[in-house]
Every structure is written in structure tokens, then in C-alpha cells.
């Protein structure tokens, strides 16, 4: 089955940013550097540590990233955000606190009119996150 993921571009700080996201979200992180890739010999030595491709995976959560910037350079926008769907309010609040560290807590977690808990933030790398949780904390669990 085809799947969609968000793919982030950085300018040499991909490793640092992805390690930050791993600290926030958990999961397994893997990197491929230019030095390890078939491109190694064509690239200047300072770029050897740059990340060709990074993957953070935690169950169904997948985030991809790279230091490979197109000819146009990096243009920061705000028209695509990362929506993190959480399974509990506690989880959402914990992620919110961690991801907003050093960034901007643009809209702290609060109950939306549609009944969910919702918040948004811009992290310290300039990426925008939406956190959403539809779990109703006070609904009693059904008996097994």
C-alpha cells in the first residue's frame, strides 16, 4: 500500500534536528551521510557529514529528512504543517512541551469547539506542528 510521509529539508543541521525530534517523540533514528553514499567522491570533504537521508520511526509515526537542498536554496514557509495525532491528552501535552522548547508556543493546548484537544507550535528549527487528540479523558473504559 502506498503511504505518505512528511519530508523535511535542513541545511547541515539535519542530524541535530532529527536527534531533537527523537528526544521529543521517541522511536528509532537512522542516518545515511554523504560520506557513506556513492556520491562521496564527488562531494567536497566538508560535506561528508551531511545527511543524505534520515528516518525516524516509531510505530506508525514516520518522519523523513535530509540536508540535500535544491538549487533554489531553503525557503521557509508555513503552508505545510506536521499534524501529530495523539492518543491521550497527557501524551499531547508532553509532546507539546518538548517540541516547543526553544521554539514558539504559538497556541498552547486547549479544548477545541469540535471536542478535541488541540494546539500548535513552531519548533526551534522553524517547522510548524499541530497537535491533536480526540481521546476523551473522562469517558470510562468499557469492561473487558
Amino acid at each position, binding site marked *: 500500500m502506498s503511504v*505518505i510521509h512528511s*519530508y523535511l*529539508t535542513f541545511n547541515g543541521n539535519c542530524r541535530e534536528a532529527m536527534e531533537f525530534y527523537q528526544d521529543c517523540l521517541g522511536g528509532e533514528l537512522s542516518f545515511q551521510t554523504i560520506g557513506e553514499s556513492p556520491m562521496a567522491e564527488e562531494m567536497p570533504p566538508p560535506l561528508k557529514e551531511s545527511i543524505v537521508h534520515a528516518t525516524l520511526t516509531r510505530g506508525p509515526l514516520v518522519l523523513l529528512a535530509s540536508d540535500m537542498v535544491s538549487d533554489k536554496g531553503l525557503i521557509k514557509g508555513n503552508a505545510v504543517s506536521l499534524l501529530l495525532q495523539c*492518543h491521550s491528552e497527557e501524551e499531547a501535552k508532553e509532546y507539546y512541551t518538548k517540541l516547543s522548547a526553544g521554539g514558539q508556543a504559538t497556541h498552547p493546548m486547549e479544548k477545541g469547539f469540535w471536542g478535541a484537544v488541540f494546539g500548535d507550535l513552531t519548533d526551534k528549527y522553524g517547522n510548524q506542528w499541530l497537535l491533536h487528540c480526540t481521546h476523551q479523558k473522562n469517558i470510562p473504559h468499557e469492561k473487558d
Partner: protein
Amino acid sequence: MAKLNPYVSFSGNCREAMQFYKQCLGGELVLQTVGEMPAMAAKMPPEMKDHILHSSLTSGGITIMASDLNRNKPVEGNTVHLCINCDSDEEINHFFTGLSAGGTITEALTKMPWGGKYGSLTDQYGKHWVFNFQMG
């Protein structure tokens, strides 16, 4: 366990864009307008009532969500791409051709050293996509 999805912002053309994505990717599209939420519509100018509050397109493992409502005016950047990992050669060709209509192909579909067929494009709405099909 938490899930991560791209959420895409538009300025009034969300319905048109999402219908285009549905044509390209298939799946089921759900659109909710401002006008369908009377409490919200009451706080907004009448011309906003047809704007999309929230929409989602679900096609198998692909979910794209989008809205016309933004706290700040959308600025198209290029640091967040929508990345589709395709299931077959036919599918990557089909998605790539469809989404590039009226847009710009930045890297044509090519066999890459990692054993994938890969390409990238900017669609007619300014959104950036990358595609990969890992060949057996």
C-alpha cells in the same frame, strides 16, 4: 500510538486543490465548510462561509489533510515535502503524471543508486512532492 500526517494550508482554494489531489491519488474526500459550523460562521465574514474548515483525503495508506483557515497568511516554502512511497511502477508513474499537470517537474522519475525510482515536482498550488518506488 501517535501518528504524523502532513497538514496543508490554502487561501480559499482548498476545495479545488483537494479535488485535484483526489483525481490524482484516488480515495475518499471529506470537506467541511465554515458555513456548516454555524457557531464559527457567525464570527466570520459571510464570504468565508464556503471556505474549508477541514478536509481529508484518504486513499489506502495515504492521508492528506488541509484547510483554508490559517492564523497567518500561508507562505509557500520548500522545507517540507509531501513524500509518497509508492507500491508499484504503474502507481508512481500515474501519481507523478497526474500531480505534475500545471506544475513543474523538478526531478523527472529516474532510477536511483538506492534501487528506487524517484522524482520530485512542485504542483500547480505550489506544494512540493517527492515520490519513491523501491524496486524489488
